[in-house]
């Protein structure tokens, strides 16, 4: 089983998998290839589910260590994390995610906390708009001008005050920012293709044991 310890085995496996998925995505190939590609994708869903278990295990190990050592002031939070995780997992297994108890936990704990985290950002945005968007140079001035019009465009009250806010804001969004946005998307696409070629040809091994 020494080949399992070598990097070439997993690299070859990755290359073959990628080639099958790519070929079945981009070309009209025999059904058997498409079916293999489809099955491989379904395996990913199962592997991702196992990865969730790994995440839970990793989180539990880290926080249990902290609680046992009690050497930092944050251990009570670790205890809270482990307890909450255990409660949610147990309730989820016993009651299932469609059950009333799980829904209660979700509605009264998880969701309000999530919404709260987003709501707090409103204060940050307001502070940022005051401190960051300053016309210190010509470029910064253009940026600030864009922010003012696009933000006003998204507030219906501004269109009420002056229709120009709507028109100029829409023009900035639909015309001025569209070119750079498309450019960025294209560059990302080209970058992904290059990364794919490097991975397929084993030049890039970053996805295996930190670069192989």
């Amino acid at each position: 089983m020494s080949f399992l310890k070598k990097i070439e085995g997993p690299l070859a496996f990755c290359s073959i998998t990628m080639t099958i998925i790519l070929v079945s995505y981009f070309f009209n190939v025999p059904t058997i290839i498409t079916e293999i590609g489809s099955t491989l994708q379904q395996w990913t869903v199962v592997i991702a589910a196992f990865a969730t278990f790994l995440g839970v295990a990793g989180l539990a190990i880290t926080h249990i260590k902290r609680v046992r050592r009690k050497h930092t002031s944050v251990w009570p939070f670790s205890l809270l994390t482990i307890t909450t995780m255990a409660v949610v997992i147990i309730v989820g297994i016993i009651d299932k995610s469609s059950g009333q108890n799980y829904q209660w936990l979700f509605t009264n704990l998880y969701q309000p906390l999530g919404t709260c985290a987003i709501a707090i950002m409103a204060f940050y945005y307001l502070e940022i708009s005051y401190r960051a968007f300053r016309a210190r140079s010509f470029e910064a001035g253009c940026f600030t001008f864009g922010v003012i019009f696009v933000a006003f465009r998204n507030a219906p009250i501004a269109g009420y005050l002056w229709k120009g806010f709507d028109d100029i804001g829409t023009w900035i969004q639909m015309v001025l920012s569209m070119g750079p946005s498309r450019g960025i998307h294209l560059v990302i696409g080209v970058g992904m293709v290059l990364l794919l070629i490097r991975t397929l040809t084993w030049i890039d091994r970053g996805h295996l044991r930190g670069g192989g």
Partner: protein
Amino acid sequence: MKWNSKYSYLLLVAAVSIPIIFPLKLKFASTVYVREFYNEVESAPEGSRVLINNHIGASGWETDFKPNMKVIVGHLIQRHLKIYVFCPSSTAPVLWDRDIRPMLEDAGYVYGTDWFLTGFYPGGETALGAFTDDPQGLVLSDYYQNDVSEMPLWKEVVTMDDFELAIHTVVAERGMRQLYSAHRMNVLMMADSGELSDSLTYYTAGMLTGIVCGIRGSAEYEILLNKPGEGVRNTDALSLTIALIPIMTILGNIIHFVDKFRGKQIK
């Protein structure tokens, strides 16, 4: 000159509170991409199958996605379309079951005959890819742990060609790759306000047929449907809070230039 942050926070609280006490009831025109979304649903033949790729998380649900989902599902119900919900997010099926299922049941939609909900499929975009390649092979049971092999609605779907419309949520790119590029589906986008710019890139390229984005999108859609609801109500608060951003930007610049004129250094 110095501006105390407390005043900004007070302004924000006032901007959210005032419309609750004194509703502004502003009227506004719908944007072209919201109208396109509406028209696509309106023109779908009765009984058409609609796929909703529900990738929504809990944090943006109450603020952006719930009003969006409610008004769009309301329209789907009005047009008697069949709804299939695929969930590559762990929270999406829970939210749907809690907030949208009652709506469907009130409208007389029968589970398994008129609508269908999958459980959580991990893997993000790959899960969506696996679903679009072979839905029957991937989904063997639904969110409620029922065996789907005998479910009449599920039997109707073999490939993506069996869906007339696809409503994609959250990140446009994933939907473009897996729904549009791979299967040439007619894709509509439901997103939060922050995703509008990205979505517009695909909309102007003709890859997305329509977009409903954030609370404003819901409000516009509600007006198009002539059923003002959560979106229209929340738009008043949104209007004032968003208006604060350019106001604070202008204020920050005025203070900056006044200080500069006076020769002071701003910290």
